[in-house]
């Protein structure tokens, strides 16, 4: 699946913002297998971009197309199908069900399109060091544990594009490395494009394209 953006700019940004940005107002194509890094200091619209690409918000000018299909024109049902089987995301604000256990949070996602068997949850949780927290309510977990839960949740479905919005902000370097390793493995097995938007500080992500927002 190919993602292309054309002259994309939030409606609340002035046209002058396109001058300094390598994303806003530009025509770009992201293809399978690419590892894209978007360096986005605070206030440059990083979360807005992820929300636009995931079809959460429409307050932008320009176009976002998946395989030539305009994202904004998709019906709610088609958008749901896209989110189940083609685009996965880790939000900056994580978005877990706080009253559900970690395992339940993961299972709710996995059962939609079971790309992995249920046992894979245990394996991934063990790799990221949260196996012992699987039966704890998500709301009672630390931010770091919740972030790792959100990462595993994003990797349980089939996808061609993985959107990551500051996915390691609550992780130390060791856990970040483990998470990146798992993400890259899963993306490679699907030949997917990974689009990571973060502040400057992550150097261990082996990007193939670098953009400044």
């Amino acid at each position, binding site marked *: 699946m190919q993602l292309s953006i054309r002259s994309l700019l939030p409606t609340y940004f002035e046209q002058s913002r396109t001058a300094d940005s390598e994303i806003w107002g530009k025509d770009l194509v992201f293809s399978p297998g690419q590892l894209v890094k978007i360096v986005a200091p605070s206030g440059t619209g990083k979360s807005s971009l992820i929300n636009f690409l995931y079809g*959460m918000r429409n307050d932008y000018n320009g176009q976002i197309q998946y395989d030539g299909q305009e994202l904004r024109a998709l019906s709610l049902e088609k958008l749901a199908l896209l989110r189940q089987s083609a685009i996965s995301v880790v939000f900056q604000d994580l978005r877990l069900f706080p009253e*559900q256990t970690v395992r339940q949070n993961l*299972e*709710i996602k996995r059962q939609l399109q079971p790309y992995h068997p249920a046992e894979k949850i245990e394996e991934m949780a063990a790799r990221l060091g949260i196996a012992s927290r699987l039966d704890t309510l998500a709301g009672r977990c630390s931010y770091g544990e919740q972030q790792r839960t959100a990462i595993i949740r994003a990797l349980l479905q089939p996808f061609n594009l993985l959107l990551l919005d500051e996915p390691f902000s609550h992780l130390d370097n060791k856990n970040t490395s483990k998470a990146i390793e798992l993400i890259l493995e899963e993306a490679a097995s699907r030949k997917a494009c990974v689009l990571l938007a973060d502040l400057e500080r992550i150097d261990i992500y082996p990007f193939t394209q670098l953009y400044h927002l």
Partner: protein
Amino acid sequence: MAASFKPIRPLLQTGTNAASRWFSYIGLGIGVLLLLSAVQMYINLQQLLHTSPVRKNGFDYLSITRQVTNENMGQKDKLFFSAAEIDDLKKQPFITDAAPLEANQFQVELSAGNLLPFSTNLFLESIDDAFLDTLPAGFTWQEGQTRIPIIVSSDFLEIFNVFGPSYGLPQVSAETASGIPVVITCHGDGNLEQDFQGQIVAFSDRINSVLVPQSFLQWANLHFKGKQAERASRVYIKTSDANNPDLLRYLDLHAYKVNKDKTKFGRVKQVFEGIFSGLAVFGILVVVLALLLFSFYLQLVIARSRDSLRLLLTLGYSPRWLSSHVSRRFIPVYFFIIIAALAAVQVMQWAFHTQVMYNRPELQTMVHVAVIALAMVLVLLSAWANFRLVDRLIKKETGHRS
């Protein structure tokens, strides 16, 4: 999407506002009970009153006349039926046929000749043969024939046998009466007078008159008075159901007078139909109110579960899948309530048939199939209304794109 709803269920705040939910369940039960029982009683009424006691070949024959009042007395236009009015009667969907009773325009006298010292002025009428309940082969007349076949109302024989003995006359059986030759004397304009031999060939339970063949009356009216009967004061109508409320409404509207005995069930039916229709409307109203109350409950559930529903849509759950599964949760409750109401109607029908109507053969102990079908339609309708509501609420509460 083969996902299970089980892990989703705890995310919905269905425990909220339980009182409103229970009130709506109870309301739905009462409404459906009212509606189904009204329909069942309406059907019972149709079955009980569709057939009237005096019926032959599946039709009722009613004699209708104009109501004679102090205001219209003597006004022929207002007391006789015009040809247009008879045509209008024939056009009504609930009237199969209509025929006027034509009367003699000349003076008629009847005597028993030398056999009995009995003589009286008489009237003769004729009607289309199709309206006669008994039509003997000999009920015909041709010009030149001196014998006139007569059909007399069986009520007349009964009356004769009541008053006859007081006048020293013997009581006679139908067979004997048929054998008595009577003399019919017709008086015309001037001194025109002619005797005919009358013979009773049949007794009619339907038509309260002295009937002669139409061919005789038409000839005699012309011969003795020089004109045909212009208008009829009585018209017979043939209908498949004398108790049809539409027929009664039509007769009332035109102020036609009809034999009350034959239509009294129809009057009762009209009243009961009104009552049961009212009850059914009330039942529908209660059902609608109950569903409305339930919709408030659902709105609250969905508003309180808004964050969870939004997140589910964000994760990729389809709005339609969520709507159908959320609304499907309540189908078993609806099904149970409506089936319980149907069971209650069945018990009522059993009690009505066996205890109140003493197993009348027109009725059934089982509820009518239409009532069962209506109950099923209500289940489907409730489920559909629920799905539409939940679908709309989920889309509204979660926003178009989140």
